[in-house]
């Protein structure tokens, strides 16, 4: 059995969990390719114009997987707790995919994480395994293996980042961006590469000890409830002293970022910050110049 996983949105947060889980269950995992012009184009054709770039990209990836696998994984992640909610784009991902491609006869494998309905990850995965007609024991085993893998990978990423924070050469630039944007080969990756080419050390805010970050975020912004933005805000607070500048990288028109980035700019006064906005038409055009001048400026101010 082949499970298709769109390489967008939550893939970048849950890739180890998902891949290990399905492989341990004896399924084949089929990933959509890296985001490219064609995927963005297809995604945009299937999207409402005003949708954010990240969600257009997502639909492009889903479309690519149609007819290539038995199931396409489209989870619905809404809330982790009363104070930790997720952007509504991820509440609706399942229903949007279902309604967008309803004439294409696709089989979606979904799971639901929503504290309001007592739907936690463990129960969600157990149900998903049952739907794939696996035995309870194998599902449990696969889930715990997957959790192990996820934990290990997250720890390794943190370690690598910590190494960069202490050993990396200056200037160190903290990139604040959702995991699905910073890791996307069309949105975030080129920025990271460009920064390295310019001699800077990119530090990724999304790679952070999540619980500590959320705690920190509460202190800075008590009514902030978007969990992924809490992590990013907390990361700023945790990494701030060790970096020379901050880049806020957003996909247009991200709802949570439209408010949170403004809060960040207004509350974090002791570091240079620029904000970069990526949209479907322009992509990264014009950004290189801004990155260069930002690095110059930081270099200048630290002397």
């Amino acid at each position: 059995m082949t499970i298709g996983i769109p390489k967008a949105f939550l893939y970048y947060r849950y890739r180890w969990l998902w891949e290990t889980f399905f492989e341990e269950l004896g399924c084949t995992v089929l990933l959509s390719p890296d985001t490219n012009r064609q995927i963005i184009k297809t995604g945009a054709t299937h999207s409402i114009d005003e949708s954010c770039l990240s969600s257009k990209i997502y639909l492009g990836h889903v479309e690519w997987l149609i007819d290539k696998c038995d199931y396409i994984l489209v989870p619905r992640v809404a809330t982790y707790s009363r104070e930790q909610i997720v952007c509504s784009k991820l509440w609706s991902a399942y229903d949007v995919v279902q309604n967008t491609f309803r004439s294409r006869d696709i089989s979606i494998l979904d799971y639901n994480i929503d504290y309001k309905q007592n739907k936690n990850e463990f129960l969600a995965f157990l149900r998903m395994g049952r739907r794939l007609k696996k035995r309870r024991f194998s599902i449990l085993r696969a889930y715990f293996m997957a959790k192990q893998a996820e934990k290990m990978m997250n720890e390794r990423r943190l370690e690598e980042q910590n190494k960069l924070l202490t050993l990396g050469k200056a200037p160190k630039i903290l990139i604040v961006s959702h995991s699905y944007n910073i890791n996307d080969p069309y949105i975030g990756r080129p920025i990271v590469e460009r920064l390295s080419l310019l001699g800077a050390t990119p530090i990724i805010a999304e790679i952070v000890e999540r619980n500590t970050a959320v705690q920190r975020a509460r202190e800075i912004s008590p009514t902030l409830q978007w969990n992924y933005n809490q992590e990013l805000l907390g990361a700023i607070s945790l990494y701030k002293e060790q970096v020379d500048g901050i880049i806020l990288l957003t996909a247009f028109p991200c709802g949570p970022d439209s408010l949170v980035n403004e809060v960040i700019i207004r509350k974090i006064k002791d570091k240079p910050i620029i904000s970069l906005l990526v949209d479907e038409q322009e992509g990264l055009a014009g950004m290189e110049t801004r990155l260069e001048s930002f690095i110059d400026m930081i270099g200048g101010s630290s002397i």
Partner: protein
Amino acid sequence: MKISFPRMGNYDVPFRYFFSRVFDAEIITPPTITKKTMELGGMHSPDFVCAPFKFNLGNYLEALEQGADTLIQFGGLCRLGYYGELHEQILRDLGYEFDFINLAGMRMRNPKSVWDKFKTYNENLSLETLANALPTTYAMVKQMDELEKHIRKNIGFETKRGEFDRLYKAYLSAAENVNNKKELKRVYHQYHKEIKNVKLTLPKNLLKVGIIGEFYTVMEPFANHFLEKELAKMQIYVTRNLNASTTVFHHDIPKLLKRVQHYVKYDIGATGVDTINSALSFARRNYDGLIHVKSFGCMPEIDAMTILQNISHDCKIPILYLTFDTQTSETGIKTRLEAFHDMILMRNNLDGR
């Protein structure tokens, strides 16, 4: 203490009623929203934040100019829940001094939560005052929603122009001056009767349009360029289910999800499922068309649009999608409305209904 709050539709009346009682303070109602409010708010807001944020900020700025020293933000189900913190920060950065009461996260339906919150702001608040003000305000909002529903449907057809407006204004000012729920009931019965008795001249062929969409932009007439008024001028019977009663007081997502299960499996956020449910119910009742209203970038409503397109296709009901921002052109909206009107009129004639 001089308290102010953001406006939305006519709800400033119950807000004023409630706050003047629980805070024991002077209430400053921000001026009716105008172009100036919008420009003031827009000037100091982040670029692609949704329009309600800008309107709210404009309200605050105008209220502060009038001497308000305490501002209230209500919060809401979506981005609204985070408005308050940024509003406060922006106003402080502009140099204003004020107290900010952020009600985001308060559970309106839980009296204990309301009590705890307001007790922290007004030590002298007695349980009796709250126990009187809360149900009266609640009843007032429900009455307003009832009356407005009737007026919205019929205002295009009143025989004597301006009757509905006159009576409704009179009702609002009478309602604001009652002392308790009993008095309010009496006021309601009087005006309800009068409003129901307003003479109407209904055309033979009634065009019916349902309005669906995002909470604020649907309910604040300035934010939607007085859409309902325009429709009334075109002699259209207008209905909407979205109001404070249906979204703040009785918001039963599981029940709604059951009704829309053919299209939606999960809650898609804020009032997205309400939008789908309303669309289906209007379609079932053979409405001639739907108008979907939202501010630019409203996430749950953008997702609802994907589903609305399928409903429009399946139920053969035309839907006009209108997006409002502070930059939206008046003429653009008017032209689209006229074209929509022509289209549903032609369809209606073809059907021979």
